[in-house]
């Protein structure tokens, strides 16, 4: 009985804390805190928004979400074992991404019309995995180094995919369909 009362009191206290500022409470919760390296999480909702990200070092992570139209993202990571996760939903969104180093990864998707992404990776063992859904989307990938991988999946009409690799032991996979 004592345990039950204690538990109820704890739950009341917890719910009061959460009710005090629900918006800030959820806002302050970071999705993931890396043990080493830095982490950036940027969410934008609306039109004409812009993200400019620069990360330098090892084990950096960036997560970008842009929802609506005519948004732009300029992303640059320099170092090793860096990761970018990207999601854009809407029309006429644009991404320029640059990664320089080893074991860098860029993964993400664009959903909507007339979106475009230009990516450039310099170094070895880098990975790009990107998906586009909608009409008039375009992707351009350039990888320079050894053992880089690029995987592109596009669904819709009027699509453009351009992948250029300079080096050896590299892999490209492009899948375009309706």
């Amino acid at each position, binding site marked *: 009985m004592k345990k039950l009362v204690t538990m109820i009191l704890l739950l009341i206290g917890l719910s009061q804390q959460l009710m005090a500022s629900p918006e800030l409470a959820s*806002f*302050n919760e970071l999705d993931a805190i890396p043990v080493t390296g830095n*982490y*950036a999480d*940027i969410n*934008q909702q609306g039109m004409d928004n812009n*993200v400019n990200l620069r990360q*330098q070092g090892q084990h950096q992570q960036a997560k970008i979400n842009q929802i609506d139209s005519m948004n732009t993202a300029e992303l640059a990571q320099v170092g090793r074992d860096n990761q970018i996760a990207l999601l854009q939903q809407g029309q006429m969104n644009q991404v320029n991404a640059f990664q320089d180093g080893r074991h860098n990864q860029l993964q993400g998707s664009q959903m909507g019309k007339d979106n475009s992404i230009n990516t450039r990776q310099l170094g070895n063992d880098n990975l790009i995995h990107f998906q586009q859904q909608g009409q008039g989307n375009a992707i351009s990938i350039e990888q320079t180094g050894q053992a880089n991988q690029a995987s592109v999946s596009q669904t819709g009409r009027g699509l453009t995919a351009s992948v250029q690799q300079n080096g050896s032991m590299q892999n490209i996979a492009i899948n375009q369909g309706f």
Partner: protein
Amino acid sequence: MTSLNKITLAALLVISSASVYAGDNQDANIKQTGDSNWSFAAQGGSRNDLDVTQEGSRNGAIAQQSGTDNKVDIKSVGYGNQAQSYQSGSRNDASLKQTGSSNLASNFQSGVNNATDIKQTGDRNMANTGQMGRANDTTITQEGYGNAAFGYQEGTLNENDVKQEGSINYSGTSQHGTANHADTLQQGLLNSSAICQSGESNAAHVAQSGRGNMSQVIQY
């Protein structure tokens, strides 16, 4: 009475009593109504409490505390008011609330487990904070148009939270050290956020909604 005399009198009254407040469990209250008033207060020791309330325009309050578990609370209502607080030590709290326009709130803390809470409601207000040490926490909330928040933190496990609602607001956060967190939330039009972090295991979180917003994050 001229404004200079008012400043001098307030300074004499409070500063002269500051030595009296150098101790533990002391309370000081200042209330000023009107224009161009200034107050200065200093407390040293532990568990001291300082409350300042100002109503009017172009008023200023300066508070200084050193020690442990001290608290300063400055409230101002009106136009062109300034609130400044300086705290050193551990577990100190500063709360600065301003309602009106063209107000300035500044707070500087050094030590461990200090907390700053700044709330500004109105237009063209500015908040400026600096914290050095460990496990310090800054929260800045601004509602209105053309407001600016600047936060600087140096050390470990510090947190800087900014929430701005309105248009053409700016938030700039600079953190240097290890495991620092920066959270910026902006709602409205043409807001901009810049976060610069150096060191290891720092995290930046930005959420913007509206149109024409800009976010810049630099980590190295």
